[in-house]
């Protein structure tokens, strides 16, 4: 054993001073940064002058508190402080499509669309009773083409998007663009204060990604996302909604991310390129203590969707395997306890691949598994060549499963009794390769109850999200 090295202040200072020296100069750093920020936009948030802020806040408090106080005194009893109009609203995207020059040609199997253009999209919101949707904000940027670069999910090739997500308190919406103004944006429910939270340059013009493309933390303070979006294995990031500061939590994630209900952990699928499989990983929200919950120990097995149960005790996840001749195949919906125990399959075992069939193989959902808020059921998107995309609902104990309705995306109502879904675009005239001349209602929004009945249309739209 060598002698103990005395640690004096002077020796520590000398050691650190040696390390603090380096070949790059501060002038170089400033020069490089100045060049870089020429192309970096600032977050578009108006900064109140300090003096105005100091006066404004007390004034606002007085204006806000005084009527409430008077109302309380007059009413005589406390009422629910949450304005009813912010609860249970549905937000979705309305895009305008053209086939110009017509007709568009759509290939259902590959999902490719030729000739389809999206001339603009906007985010709207409505109450569940379906009164005329109110515009929230126009989606920034323009889209050169609808057909995307991710053919593994046919939906991404046919819709302009973006997918939208309510903040947990229902006061704001977040969405992510993949056009010529790529980034994560947040906007107030009334359309005010549109802010580009993160500029995601490498997503430029990659087309609509596989939803969901971002995830709010339960406290609304952070958003998790994968970036860059193109490619299979990319870093997992978290951005602070208040100041836009980003942190990378992992460098091998796939597009499957979900916060635990208490916000302390994030579940995601980590990719292992060398052995061609993904594993279910849970990481602390500060990026420490990553734990592999489930190791799919067969090559070619990938986790394509996951969701925490509302009580945080379990994670439901969807697995697919790369098919040998007919493409990716759904391998099952699975349930695992949050501590990594009690792994079991939910629902019936999928039928084996049918070689040479050319169709009728149940494909994996493109990243959509959603637990109903009451914890009783799990919904997922499945699609195959015969039926197209459908919602499959299974009881959380795995006892019963049924196909609910045709849909590409969906969300549960806050009480779990209804589902809002987006259906379309469908195959046209039952042709595997068809032509489209009309783009009206390219995708439409419908509300159904959990048994698939009592359907009510909300009009054209895509990517609905039901606020808590």
């Amino acid at each position: 054993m060598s002698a103990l090295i005395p640690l004096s202040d002077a020796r520590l200072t000398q050691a650190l001073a040696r390390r603090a020296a380096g070949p790059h100069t501060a002038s170089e750093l400033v020069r490089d940064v100045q060049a870089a920020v020429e192309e970096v936009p600032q977050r578009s948030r108006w900064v109140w002058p300090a003096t105005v802020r100091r006066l404004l806040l007390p004034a606002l408090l007085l204006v806000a508190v005084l009527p409430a106080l008077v109302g309380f005194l007059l009413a005589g009893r406390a009422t629910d402080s949450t304005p009813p109009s912010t609860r249970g609203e549905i937000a979705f995207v309305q895009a305008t499509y053209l086939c110009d020059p017509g007709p568009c040609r759509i290939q259902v199997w590959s999902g490719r669309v030729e000739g389809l253009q999206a001339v603009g999209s906007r985010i709207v919101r409505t109450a569940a009773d379906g009164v005329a949707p109110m515009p929230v904000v126009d989606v920034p940027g323009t889209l050169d083409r609808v057909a995307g670069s991710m053919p593994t999910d046919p939906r991404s090739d046919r819709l302009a998007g973006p997918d939208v997500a309510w903040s947990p308190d229902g006061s704001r919406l977040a969405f992510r663009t993949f056009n010529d103004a790529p980034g994560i944006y947040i906007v107030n429910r009334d359309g005010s204060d549109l802010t580009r939270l993160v500029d995601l340059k490498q997503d430029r013009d990659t087309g609509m990604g596989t939803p969901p493309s971002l995830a709010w933390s339960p406290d609304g303070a952070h958003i998790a996302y994968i970036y860059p979006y193109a490619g299979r294995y990319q870093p997992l990031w978290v951005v602070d909604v208040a100041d836009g500061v980003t942190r990378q939590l992992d460098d091998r994630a796939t597009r499957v991310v979900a916060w635990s209900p208490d916000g302390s952990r994030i579940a995601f699928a980590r990719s292992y390129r060398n052995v061609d499989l993904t594993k279910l990983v849970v990481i602390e929200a500060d990026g420490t203590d990553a734990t592999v919950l489930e190791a799919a120990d067969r090559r070619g097995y990938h986790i394509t969707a996951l969701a925490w149960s509302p009580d945080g005790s379990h994670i439901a996840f969807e697995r697919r395997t790369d098919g040998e001749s007919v493409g990716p195949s759904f391998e099952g919906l699975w349930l695992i306890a949050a501590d990594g125990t009690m792994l079991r399959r939910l629902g019936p075992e999928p039928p084996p691949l049918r070689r040479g069939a050319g169709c009728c193989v149940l494909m994996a959902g493109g990243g959509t598994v959603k637990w109903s808020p009451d914890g009783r059921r799990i919904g997922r998107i499945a699609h195959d060549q015969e039926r197209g995309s459908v919602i499959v609902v299974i009881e959380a104990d795995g006892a019963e499963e049924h196909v609910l309705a045709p849909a590409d995306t969906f969300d549960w109502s806050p009480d779990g009794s209804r589902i809002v879904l987006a259906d379309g675009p469908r195959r046209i005239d039952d042709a595997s390769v068809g032509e489209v001349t009309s783009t009206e209602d390219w995708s439409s929004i419908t509300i159904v109850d959990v048994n698939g009945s009592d359907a009510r249309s909300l009009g054209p739209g895509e990517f609905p999200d039901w606020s808590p």
Partner: protein
Amino acid sequence: MLVGMGMRPAPESVADVASVGVAATLDAPLVERAAHGDHEAFARLIEPRAARLLRTARVILANEADAYEAAQETLIAAWASLPGLRDANHFDAWLHRTLVNKCRDALRKRSRVREIDLGATEVETPDIADEHVAQDAILAAFDRLSVEERYILALHHVEDLPLATIAGQLGIPLGTAKSRLWSARRKLERALEAER
């Protein structure tokens, strides 16, 4: 650059030695202007701070490339997020918090292989060589500390900031700053014992 063994790095500009608190107050108008997209104001804001950021990143990350990238990303992020900074007087604390996060990200990305700098070619006298061996052991122990512990030791030993300034930098009470510095130092001593 080191002026001589045992001395702290010479400042790269006179402005670099300005205390954090005074600079923050004087620069509040620059922060406001930079937050409105004024590139020149932003350049004037970061020029006196760049050297300290770079030194601190080097101390924490022990790797020139990582340190340069972390410092660069910190300043770019500062530019992008400046409009969201509510109080211009908190710019320095906010900036250094960003640096700590960037350093943490860099360490997380790095593989667990200690890099050996092959660049040193100068011939050392026996006395200097022995001292460097001792300092290398100290640095190896230092690398066992958390990013926050490395950061507070860097502010105290490399930047020679008074504790009151360090407390302001970290946004914590003076007593807490003292306690954290003492705790980091104790942990370093224990880590040094483990390096034997």
